[in-house]
């Protein structure tokens, strides 16, 4: 056991944590603004990864062009999904209903959606794993520590995205409107905000975040259609751990869970998932709302 291995595990953990953070940001954005619990979020992540694979590796487009195309496709898919399903869930409730009613109904509906979408991915792309040639094959070596550039790039891009998001929420009109709707959708409606448009925009933004997470993970791991259902549960665990309505909690919880997974998997194998779950359960005894959240009704 030497220091370099530990450091590499640390970097791997951070990069997994960064992926979790991006996914959880998307989930939280959707929950807080629209009140919808989206179990199909993991499939958005898979869609993102596969779109990127298709554009970058099959169509052989330029990297930047492929990324932009992925984002656009994610926006379109999520818009269609929202309009087809969640719009009707939304229409069932008045603006001032408590969050939990809407959350329960949308949770049930989105589980159905998850089944449909994951099956569509399997039917369309097949069950075999697909790899993407790495676009950053370099490996930095610092005094014996080998750091793959793509892992570092995940961390950097996640930090960058967090910065852009905070600018978006506090600096732009659309972001401010989203925050207003998430605080009180009835009052913001009275102030002249088109809340339907905000709902669909925030759903699309959340899904784009998931798609970007999938895009970032695509060169590191091989793509397979089951990866969405695997990661959505971990992301949900991270969200519960950090507190459902706290972005700050998501960051801390994402890093903790990412590191715990990376070290735990190396040292004790697959049982580490069980221990992680038990750890979160014990944590919830003392803080039912997670790191920074309050328990929702």
């Amino acid at each position, binding site marked *: 056991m030497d220091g370099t291995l530990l450091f590499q595990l640390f970097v791997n953990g951070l990069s997994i944590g960064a992926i979790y953070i991006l996914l959880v940001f998307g989930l939280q954005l959707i929950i807080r603004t629209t009140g919808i619990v989206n179990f199909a979020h993991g499939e958005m992540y898979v869609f993102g990864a596969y779109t990127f694979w298709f554009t970058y590796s099959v169509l052989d487009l330029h990297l930047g062009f492929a990324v932009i195309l992925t984002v656009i496709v994610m926006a379109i898919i999520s818009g269609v999904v929202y309009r087809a399903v969640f719009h009707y869930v939304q229409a069932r409730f008045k603006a001032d209903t408590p969050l*939990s009613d809407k959350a329960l109904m949308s*949770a049930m*509906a989105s589980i159905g959606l998850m089944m449909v979408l994951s*099956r569509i991915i399997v039917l369309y792309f097949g069950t075999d794993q697909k790899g993407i040639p790495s676009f950053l094959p370099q490996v930095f070596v610092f005094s014996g520590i080998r750091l793959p550039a793509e892992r570092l790039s995940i961390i950097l891009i996640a930090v960058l995205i967090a910065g852009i998001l905070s600018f978006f929420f506090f600096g732009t009109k659309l972001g401010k409107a989203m925050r207003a709707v998430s605080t009180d959708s009835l009052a913001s409606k009275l102030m002249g905000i088109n809340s339907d448009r905000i709902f669909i925009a925030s759903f699309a933004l959340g899904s784009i975040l998931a798609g970007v997470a999938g895009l970032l993970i695509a060169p590191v791991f091989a793509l397979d259609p089951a990866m969405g259902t695997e990661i959505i549960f971990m992301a949900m665990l991270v969200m519960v751990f950090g507190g459902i309505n706290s972005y700050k909690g998501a960051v801390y919880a994402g890093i903790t869970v990412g590191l715990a997974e990376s070290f735990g998997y190396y040292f004790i194998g697959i049982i580490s998932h069980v221990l992680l779950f038990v750890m979160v*359960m014990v944590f919830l005894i003392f803080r039912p709302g997670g790191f920074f959240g309050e328990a929702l009704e």
Partner: protein
Amino acid sequence: MTYVAAGLGMSFNMVYSTRLITLGAAAFYAIGAYSSTLLTIKLNLSFWLALPLATVIAGIVAFVVGVIIIRTGTLTFVIMTLLFCLIIYQLVGSISWLGGWGGFINIPRPNPISIPYIGEISFQSRVPFYYLGLCLILLVALIYQSLYSSRIGRAWKAIKQSERVAASMGINVFWYKTLCFVVASSASGALGSFYAHYYQIVIPDMFTGFISIYIQIYSALGGLEYYILGPAVGAAIMIFVPELLNIAQDIQPIIFGSMLVIIIVFFPGGIIGSLKKLNQKKNRKKNEIRRKC
């Protein structure tokens, strides 16, 4: 199988009666099956002792888990129960003492029992099992019905209407919710025990999180508001219709998933609820015509 599905659906509806959604049915189902299997194989207990013990074990686990996660709020409860399913799945798979991924085979069938007037019943063929399952499911339905019509059931109803009002009426919301979760989960455990001895094998793949989701579909199809009849109708339809139509395994999840979405979003009452609504509309029209005349 229909019995088991119906019973699990009833448990789902029961938990829903306090405005919680549990996706942990498969976990307690697995706990029941595994504890019953271990008791009969490792300790050589008879099935008739293992079934109640499995029920109790599932109840105890549900109590421990429930006390922790019910406090965390509705949304977290949904997520944590689903995660609990996956964790149990991984736990029984990765520990070799619990059978590993291969599971157990040759689980003993129940000992023959002798009932006065009927004679001895041995459980070597499937027919007695059919009646055993029927008895079990009727027992579960009976217990649920008596709970619903008692003080406890009325408290659950109050909680479903509004938690705050219920709390201000002196109902201890937390303990009533926990009770609901424990009763529903131990019923799942009993059904799991029955299932293990019926098929004589348990493998982890029988207890994935998808079981919980399918159970949710059964309940939603029958009607979430109809606690006992709803899941029974839903499970019967969902198990017989795909076999009759011979739907390919490939597209089954697409059909089931879209069915769940459509039911939840457009017909929240399920089949029974929609039929009732239709009936009411007819009656109203009849009345209108009568008034016009």
